[in-house]
């Protein structure tokens, strides 16, 4: 299943207790340019799968490949070049930003870590993309709303132009308008860059509208074989 661009997971078993893995023999493919939705009841392991795919959690078994490169290490043991091909958005924007940093600094962090040139211009560009006004950029997280924070998190996730975006319940704390706005930015980015997106949510109405195909993670930790728009009865 190795190919030029795409996120491929094969036979992934992962969890927090060897005897009771949260995800069990999961095969997942997110090709460049497509949006794959992942739905399932809370506690079914969607976040764990997201963390494995983002190289943040080592699975017990299974293989993962990103753009043809086989993944051998996770977290700090994963090659920087591989880690930065992925962008991640988390459910709670308030915990996803360093409380002592202004939004400007938070968005600039990946650029600084990569020693990118012209950080200030790039931050301006990213802020414009997510509709954050300059005066908001100089505020700290406790001075802005959840919606504005999540916009900043999206700007940060897109800073290094990743080829893959993992959105882990990113809209759960947001209202309808901010949800639509962020999804629009992501879709636009996808079309420009050809990135693949894994959208995780328990909001099946949203996934139906946003994703090209929707997978279901059952409480057993296995992916439901049925995919695509008409899904029939859910357990």
């Amino acid at each position, binding site marked *: 299943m190795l190919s030029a661009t795409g996120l491929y997971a094969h036979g992934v078993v992962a969890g927090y207790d060897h005897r009771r893995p949260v995800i069990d023999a999961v095969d997942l493919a997110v090709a460049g340019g497509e949006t794959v939705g992942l739905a399932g*009841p*809370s*506690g079914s392991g969607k976040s764990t799968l997201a963390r494995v795919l983002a190289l943040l959690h080592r699975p017990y078994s299974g293989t993962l490949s990103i753009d043809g490169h086989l993944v051998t290490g996770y977290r700090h043991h994963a090659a920087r070049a591989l880690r930065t091909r992925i962008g991640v958005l988390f459910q709670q924007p308030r915990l996803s930003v360093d409380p002592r940093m202004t939004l400007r600094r938070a968005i600039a962090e990946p650029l600084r870590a990569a020693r990118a040139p012209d950080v200030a211009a790039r931050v301006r560009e990213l802020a414009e993309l997510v*509709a*954050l*006004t300059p005066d*908001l950029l100089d505020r700290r997280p406790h001075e802005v*709303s*959840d*919606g*504005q924070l999540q916009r900043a998190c999206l700007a940060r996730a897109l800073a290094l132009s990743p080829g893959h975006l993992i959105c882990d319940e990113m809209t*759960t*704390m*947001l*209202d*309808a*308008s*901010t*949800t*639509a*706005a962020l*999804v*629009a930015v992501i879709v636009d980015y996808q079309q420009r860059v050809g990135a693949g997106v894994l959208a995780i949510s*328990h*909001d*099946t*109405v*949203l996934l*139906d*509208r*946003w994703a090209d195909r929707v997978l279901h993670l059952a409480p057993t930790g296995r992916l439901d074989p049925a995919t695509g728009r008409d899904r029939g009865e859910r357990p």
Partner: protein
Amino acid sequence: MVSADTELAVAELAVTGLSVRFTIPGARVAAVSDVSFTVCPGECLALVGESGCGKSVLAAALLGFLPANAEVAGHAILSGGGTPPLDLLTAPDRVLARTVRGRRIGLVPQSPAAHLTPVRTARAQLEETVRAHHPALRRPREHAEAVAARAGLNPSDLDRYPHELSGGMAQRVATALALVGDPWLLIADEPTTGLDRALVDALVGELRRLVDDGHAVLLITHDLAAVGRVADRIAVMYAGRLAETGPTPAVLDTPLHPYTRGLLDSLPDRAFTPVPGLPPLLTDLPAGCAFTPRCARMVPACGQRPTLADHSGHLVACHRPC
């Protein structure tokens, strides 16, 4: 079931001109400005708006939970129950604690698991609340189980600790705790956040059952989809003010305020297009209509703040309604 019909007949929460502002170093936050509405038993009023628009502050003001740096204006008159009408905004904390909280107004908070003591079982906390509200009862355990059953919990579920409860069960425990003192008005603060569609449906069903039973529900949420199924009336808040209020079918099918229309259009099962721009910060609101920078229907009159105008039961604060 709410107790006496005579109580029901005159029970009412009438909020007029409620405003709340906070003073923080270097700024003044106008969290709620001039909000008026009424809630009576047997109906559900949904207060809708995006995060940071002041909805939760309103709930805090009604229950007397505002922090020390807050100031209020306006009135929130709670009447019924055979006692003289009480202004919740001026009542001392003692009166609120002994007669209002839990007894006339119950609160179902956001993130229920965080509102439960982690080292005690659900049963222990429920029984403690029962003993607090009904000290004369000789067998609080049975009353606790009855209340829990009404909220859809099995007696065996009650013996779990909060961290062992799933999201849905924790929500039901919180609802049970709110109902112990038999309040006629329930304030539900973002109860659907983080819940699966199935759990949202269950919660919405419970709230509707409570309304049909004779309770009143003030549902604070940004989930427009849930609102359609349970609310009788919807009040839309923007930047701390009421933008539109009216019966649910009217607001959802024929919204008058451009913001409401924009919110509905941003739903994934409708146009899925966002309202352009960002809401204003509550620390510097403009003199005129706060929605002006984002409004496609702006006219010169929008430089003056609009007041709520009545269109046969459907109120809107706009100089050029849709």
